[in-house]
């Protein structure tokens, strides 16, 4: 494995410090400081043994901090000498960190921040820039997260589902600053899938790869949002699609279906189609049925209604929509689309305008406004 990036080593180095007797919060702080030094000095002076360098630097940081703390409290320092290095079960350490950082006791934004720092090896500054918040705010968020999980045993993992949800959140946060969070989420999911061998971890990885493959085609000039039907499919990344499909097939073969595998299956059917018209919508609806059985999620019900509209015609889609809660985000957008397909352009225009007012992002709002404007005009004959 090429570990030229110091951040790849971060979870393993935290693990070493914890096994030497450091508590997680202090170990994580010490490794962060060593990492920042590594980022500054390695480009000019690369170490022969990067991991050894990081362990040594972090351990010294930890001892310094512990000594300062001990003298402040007037107590003796218990851990002093550097223990002899033993066999390093880095694999288990890393996996434990995934579970700890995504612990159910943490609110999502804290779990995301802590995961990015302790598992992803990003600096506080990078995480702050990616979330468009001041660095001091992000540092506090991470400290609070660590306080909250202090005392929780490192060896009692939470559920895999929580870890997957945190990684999916990271993936959906996209860009900010100099860090590509989507790519970072893929890197972490790839490692998690390898560490656990769980079909759902593979399913999430496949889902991310298949979505990421379409990224270049999803925005047009000026950040304008391009919907799936209008995307230039020649710009989709076929290497990522091939990998995503292979990962998904491997997961499905294990015959333990879960929501991420089902979502990835839908993404794979889109990725496989030469156009919206040539998409296998019937199979997509079947996957939505599976997904609904797994999650009973109202959002899935909404997306399913749109897929039904494509598979069986707009009236069938509208009938499916009638069973969906109108209070859902994007309900108006889905309703607008189905009414337009059913030929009711006036109603579609009003719904698109309503959807634009309810939009949660500027590109989405502008897109929906443009859709309202488009359907208001008489269709060209």
């Amino acid at each position, binding site marked *: 494995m090429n570990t030229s990036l110091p951040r790849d080593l971060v979870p393993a180095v935290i693990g070493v410090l914890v096994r030497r007797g450091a508590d997680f919060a202090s170990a994580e702080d010490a490794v962060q400081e060593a990492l920042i030094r590594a980022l500054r000095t390695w480009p000019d002076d690369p170490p022969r043994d990067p991991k050894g360098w990081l362990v040594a630097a972090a351990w010294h940081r930890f001892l310094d901090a512990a000594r300062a703390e001990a003298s402040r409290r007037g107590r003796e320092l218990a851990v002093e000498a550097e223990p002899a290095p033993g066999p390093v079960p880095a694999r288990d350490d890393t996996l434990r960190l995934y579970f700890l950082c995504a612990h159910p006791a943490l609110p999502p934004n804290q779990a995301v921040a802590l995961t990015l720092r302790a598992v992803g090896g990003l600096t506080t500054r990078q995480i702050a820039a990616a979330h468009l918040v001041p660095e001091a705010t992000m540092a506090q968020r991470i400290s609070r997260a660590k306080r909250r999980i202090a005392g929780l045993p490192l060896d009692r993992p939470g559920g895999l589902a929580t870890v997957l949800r945190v990684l999916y959140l990271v993936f959906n946060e996209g860009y900010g600053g100099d860090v590509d969070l989507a790519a970072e989420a893929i890197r972490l999911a790839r490692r998690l899938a390898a560490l656990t061998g769980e079909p759902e971890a593979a399913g999430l990885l496949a889902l991310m790869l298949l979505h990421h493959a379409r990224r270049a085609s999803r925005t047009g000039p*000026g950040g304008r949002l391009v919907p799936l039907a209008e995307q230039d499919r020649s710009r989709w990344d076929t290497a990522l699609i091939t990998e995503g499909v292979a990962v998904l097939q491997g997961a499905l073969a294990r015959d333990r279906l879960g929501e991420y595998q089902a979502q990835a299956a839908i993404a794979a059917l889109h990725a496989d189609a030469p156009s919206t018209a040539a998409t296998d919508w019937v199979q997509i609806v079947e996957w939505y049925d599976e997904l609904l059985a797994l999650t009973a999620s109202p959002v899935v019900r909404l997306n399913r209604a749109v897929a039904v509209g494509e598979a069986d015609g707009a009236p069938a889609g509208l009938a499916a929509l009638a069973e969906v809660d109108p209070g859902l985000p994007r309900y108006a957008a889905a309703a607008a689309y189905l009414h337009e397909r059913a030929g009711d352009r006036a109603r579609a225009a009003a719904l698109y305008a309503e959807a634009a007012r309810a939009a949660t992002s500027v590109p989405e709002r502008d897109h929906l406004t443009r859709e309202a404007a488009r359907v208001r005009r008489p269709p060209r004959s």
Partner: protein
Amino acid sequence: MKYLLLKHYRGGPDPVSAYEPMDRWTPEEVDAHVGYMNDFADRLKETGEYVDSQALAPGGAFVRSDGEGRPPVTDGPFAETKDLIAGWMIIDVDSWDRAVELAGELSAAPGPGGEPIREWLEVRPFLTGSASTTE
């Protein structure tokens, strides 16, 4: 000196040009308007005068405390008559005159038929965080 250029969904002085809401424009007019806004921000980034810009959704409410142990009181969603902020741009420029000049340009974003919409923008100077060193 930093200035806030405040855009309102409604409120402020009477509009000088009556134009329809954006969802009634043509898609090309919408594109031209959005493009103008983006270009304006890009230009200020190049001149070193851009700080930040954000858009606000029309939803939300006024909120106030109702005393200890009681849930906060909300007033909203906003009635049609209320002044409603749509978003802002923060600029860092040398003078009030420059702030006014830029607000004038931003207000001239194209609307239906490519005509400048000439909407009112509120321009407000920031109070600085530190006291002046000359006394």
